[in-house]
């Protein structure tokens, strides 16, 4: 053993010597040298790192659980005073008036209306953008366009809100008669622009992931490019596209700033996009910023509304997760 740095079982000839060094089996063959190596204790730092990572992962779970607990507890307080029958049976939402009504439908209608408008904008544009990027854009253009599109998702929503209020709505007023200064249409369209990158980017991933073998099968049957794209590739990517739309809808339902700024704050049970409405999220903002004393039933309404929002987005996110899993599992090939 003139070279102690040499690995014990590098060659068979060295084996007896390394056995001697370990002092256990003087005449042992190579395996004898192995145990000392195997029994070396695991590095302490590895355990520490593992613990730190675990705690980090735990924080997000604990936070989620904490939010749910608070939501449920405060909502329970609310529903102790306001019955579920009233919550879902009344058609007016006026917790701050003398004549109090706690019917969720006006807020729900506001949320659904703005979300519907957003999807009507984002789905066609997002899907067509995704199809273009995945199927038609040259690779170099695709590499530039896709990140550019995703930048849209990084714009602060307060900017979008004022964009809706000070630019989109006035512009729309030129073409839409009877459009109020605060309305569902303007913020709905801007929200559509906001979720467009989600739909476009995730749909593009789904379309891009459709196996080349299906495209080839289609071409080999004498199908042209457009038919191949719209009859074979896009239907095959349906799970992923569906997931992207659901995630987009989920974002739109939870979106707060745009509607709080530009949709007005008037809970109103209507599907007329021209008049001021209020969404669930905008209502929560209104109460949080106002002077409603904590602990009162008026204050607790925001937790009940928040719980509703949470349940809606939870269901949608689970649906999207399932669809994406189906896509990744390769229900395609």
């Amino acid at each position: 053993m003139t070279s102690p740095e040499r690995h014990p079982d590098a060659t068979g000839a060295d084996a007896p010597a390394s056995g001697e060094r370990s002092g256990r089996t003087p005449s042992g063959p190579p395996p004898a040298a192995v145990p000392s190596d195997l029994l070396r204790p695991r590095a302490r730092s590895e355990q520490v790192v593992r613990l730190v990572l675990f705690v980090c992962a735990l924080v997000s779970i604990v936070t989620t659980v904490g939010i749910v607990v608070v939501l449920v507890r405060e909502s329970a307080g609310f529903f102790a005073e306001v019955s579920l029958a009233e919550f879902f049976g009344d058609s007016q939402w006026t917790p701050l008036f003398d004549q109090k009504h706690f019917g969720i439908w006006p807020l729900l209608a506001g949320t659904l209306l703005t979300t519907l408008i957003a999807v009507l904008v984002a789905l066609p544009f997002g899907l067509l953008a995704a199809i273009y990027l995945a199927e038609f854009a040259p690779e170099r253009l695709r590499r530039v366009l896709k990140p550019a599109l995703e930048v849209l998702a990084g714009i602060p929503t307060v900017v979008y809100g004022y964009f809706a209020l000070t630019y989109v709505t006035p512009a729309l007023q030129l073409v839409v008669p009877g459009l109020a200064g605060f309305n569902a249409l303007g913020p709905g369209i801007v929200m559509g622009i906001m979720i467009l990158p989600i739909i476009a980017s995730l749909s593009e991933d789904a379309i891009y992931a459709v196996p080349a073998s299906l495209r080839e099968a289609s071409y080999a049957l004498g199908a042209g490019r457009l038919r191949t794209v719209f009859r074979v590739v896009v239907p095959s990517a349906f799970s992923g596209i569906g997931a992207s739309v659901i995630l987009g809808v989920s974002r739109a339902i939870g979106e707060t700033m745009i509607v709080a700024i530009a949709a007005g704050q008037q809970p109103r049970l209507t599907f007329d996009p021209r008049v001021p409405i209020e969404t669930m999220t905008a209502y929560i903002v209104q109460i949080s910023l106002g002077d409603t004393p904590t602990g009162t039933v008026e204050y607790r309404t925001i937790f009940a509304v928040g719980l509703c929002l949470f349940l809606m987005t939870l269901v949608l996110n689970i649906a999207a997760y399932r669809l994406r899993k189906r896509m990744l599992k390769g229900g395609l090939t």
Partner: protein
Amino acid sequence: MDTVLAAPTPTPRPSGGLPSPTTTAGERAAALAAADAVARPTEKMSAHDLHAWFGKAEALKGITLPLLERRVTAIIGPSGCGKSTFVRCLNRMHEVVPGARVAGRVLLDGQDVYASQVNPVRVRRRVGMVFQKPNPFPTMSIRENTLAGLRLGGEKAPDPAGLAEKALRQAALWDEVKDILGRSGSGLSGGQQQRLCIARALALEPEVLLMDEPCSALDPIATARIEELIHGLRERYTIVIVTHNMQQAARVADYTAFFHLGELVEYDRTDVLFTRPSRQRTEDYITGRFG
């Protein structure tokens, strides 16, 4: 090899001594040899000095090869020899891959499919293809898969149900799927999926059927069924089958071409090529000395 004079009209198969699937490969080869010696079949397709590239890599280096009408031609050779590329050039599928390029001529009934005014979609309509991995459309039912060629081509079949049945019968799949035509094609076994893909190609009534290693993803039983099917299809179609399985080539093919490193080394009647190859490289390959 392409200098042999082509017969002026398509030759019917010899009556009486028609080789049936039950005859041995040797008997069939002998019957065929006798028939083809009297009148050589028409060249349904032929390649002339065909080159193909992927980017800068030259995959085919000047292939000249006839594909005789209503005969089965096998293309054999080690991996990367260009055999798949060759068949993909025959129906203009090679160019679908980005960066792929072709030079040379491919004739279909005497017409160059690479002529500038030719529409590749029309070529593929007449020259059907079956791929290595079964690739039925997952979003379509078995019936829709069978009729996919028409649907994707924007055509309407006068009798879709009848056409689907006919194609599935030709592909020897009808009895297994006739009660589940509405189900997804992805639920079938690998061998059934491959026969569905064959049915899908046959429903377009192509003149030539290209099969790119159609059995390499299948088990021996499914392979035997496909081979049996090829025996039946040879009566009506000109078939080109790429295979890395020499036994398979010997079993199904009337003529065999041996490719190596992008070149055609030898082309002959299958029985001749496997028993008395004239090139050393062919002999080395079929005796397992390389590849």
